[in-house]
């Protein structure tokens, strides 16, 4: 069984001092990976990871995840190889197909078909691999939900990231996959891996460390009305309870699904911290 890893995907742009403080806080809280998202109006991922590396000592730095359609693959490979060198090899590259159509429109980039967006991921990965032809490339995380993307991830990535979302996820609405649907995606990847060992990552969409599990489940149900409180209670992407109970849940998820790397979004940075503490060395 793989050791746990915990990552946070930072989102909010800000001053140098704010960014440095946030990265140090994540490292101090015990996270293994400091990541950045790739959205308009959010932090600029490549400069931000460089500064994150300067501000911290231990954590890995990852793009969680780059929208392949936003970047020319050759220039992206230059950015990533430069970041890898300048961060002393602490970079982990995450790439996905992009999913927020409004952002494509705002940037004047063709949305295209799912097949076209997938092809842009393939080109980004191909150029990265070309840039590292003669030496080992940084670890690659590929994330997504569809068969094509997960098959490609199973072929190329050291880490496979599950979105935990259901088809038709609309902006502003948390369209979470139910427990059975998520387990099915994990099984799909395991079959595609065909015995190859890869790290499995999951984004925790909702986390509340609380003594009042009932009230927090109700709050989650209001956000995700298509799943019952009962389903939410057994969903690996929803973590509710005391720190000890949450730790037990992540242990179970690792046991049953093989997912050992959990990521939260910036707003949940401090919420996951006591759980990380509970799981130290386990």
């Amino acid at each position, binding site marked *: 069984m793989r050791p746990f890893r915990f990552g946070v995907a930072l989102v909010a*742009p800000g001053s*140098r001092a704010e960014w440095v403080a946030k990265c140090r806080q994540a490292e101090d809280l015990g996270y293994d990976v400091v990541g950045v998202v790739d959205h308009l109006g959010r932090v*600029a991922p*490549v*400069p931000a990871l460089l500064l994150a590396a300067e501000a911290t000592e231990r954590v890995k730095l990852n793009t969680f995840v780059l929208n392949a359609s936003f*970047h020319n*693959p050759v220039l992206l490979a230059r*950015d990533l190889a430069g*970041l890898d060198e300048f961060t002393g090899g602490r970079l982990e590259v995450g790439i996905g197909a992009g999913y927020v159509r409004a952002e494509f429109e705002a940037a004047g*980039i063709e949305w295209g078909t799912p097949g076209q967006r997938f092809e842009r991921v393939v080109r980004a990965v191909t150029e990265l691999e070309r840039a590292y032809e003669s030496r080992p490339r940084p670890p690659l995380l590929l994330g997504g939900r569809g068969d094509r993307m997960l098959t490609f991830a199973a072929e190329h990535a050291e880490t496979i990231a599950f979105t935990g979302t259901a088809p038709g996820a609309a902006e502003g609405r948390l369209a979470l996959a139910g427990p059975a649907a998520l387990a099915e995606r994990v099984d799909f990847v395991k079959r595609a891996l065909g015995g190859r060992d890869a790290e499995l990552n999951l984004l925790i969409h909702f986390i509340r460390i609380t003594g009042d599990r009932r009230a927090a489940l109700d709050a989650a149900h209001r956000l995700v009305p298509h799943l019952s409180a009962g389903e939410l209670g057994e969903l690996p992407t929803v973590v509710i309870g005391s720190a000890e109970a949450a730790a037990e849940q992540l242990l179970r998820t690792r046991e049953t699904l093989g997912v050992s790397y959990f990521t939260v979004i910036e707003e949940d940075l401090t919420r996951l911290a006591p759980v990380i503490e509970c799981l130290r060395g386990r």
Partner: protein
Amino acid sequence: MTGDFRFGVNMVVPDSRAAWVEKCRKVEDLGYDVLSAADHLGMAPPFPALVLAGEVTSRVKLNTFVLNAPFYNPVLLARDVTGTDQFTEGRLELGLGAGYVKEEFEAAGMPFPSARERVDHLERTILELKRRYADPEHKPGPARPEGPPLLLGGRGDRILTLAAEHADIIGFTGTAKTPDGGALVPASAEDIEERVKFVRSKLGDREAEFNLLCHFVHITDDRAAALEELAKLTKGVLSVDQLAEVPTALVGSPAEVAEQLHAHRERFGLTYYTVLEQNMEQFAPVLEALR
């Protein structure tokens, strides 16, 4: 201080982290005002390189010299520009150009647009950046409300007209008119003077700093011999007498070069020179001579 002059170093050699850090510190220690990162394939990526440069220095301005604007989507570029401006606490000076290396467009899998299209793209980029700086909703915002100082570099009428309209710093290339996409050739002093006059006519009353990329530096006690050598090196495109006059070739003792710089300021209005990184140590005594 070097009077009213500013001097920059253009970094063009990709390097390990340790070597990059050491070089950046040397630029500052030698007394330069600006550290510039070029934008070509096979070189370091400019924005992360400048953020790292900012972390290991305290004083120098950090400049892209110059970004190949057609390489970038303007909306995404704005995010990198304002993000880098924030992370370097306002030390960024943004340099933009229209791009000129045809092979790089091919290597990046992009069509090589016509000169007109490239300048069109540059103009859209400038307007998009200015619009984003002015929009309080745009995140990340720039370190200062007006955004980082803008340097525009080029030689053609359209790009220099754009520069006269929008830029805080006009970057003269010091190159002659050649077929688009072809090799660069040094311009004569008369050619450069003509370009300077053109920009002045477009600027009207507006103030702008004039920058020049200095292609050749040779600090020596024997100026005459060094000019002969340079004439051979540049395959006789310019005669020895012509080379003696051009501001793109700074040749002579530190005192002689300091004198040339004063003369060039009179003739061309140039006050900001950028030298290539391989010349930074050689040129440093000139900075001393101007103090």
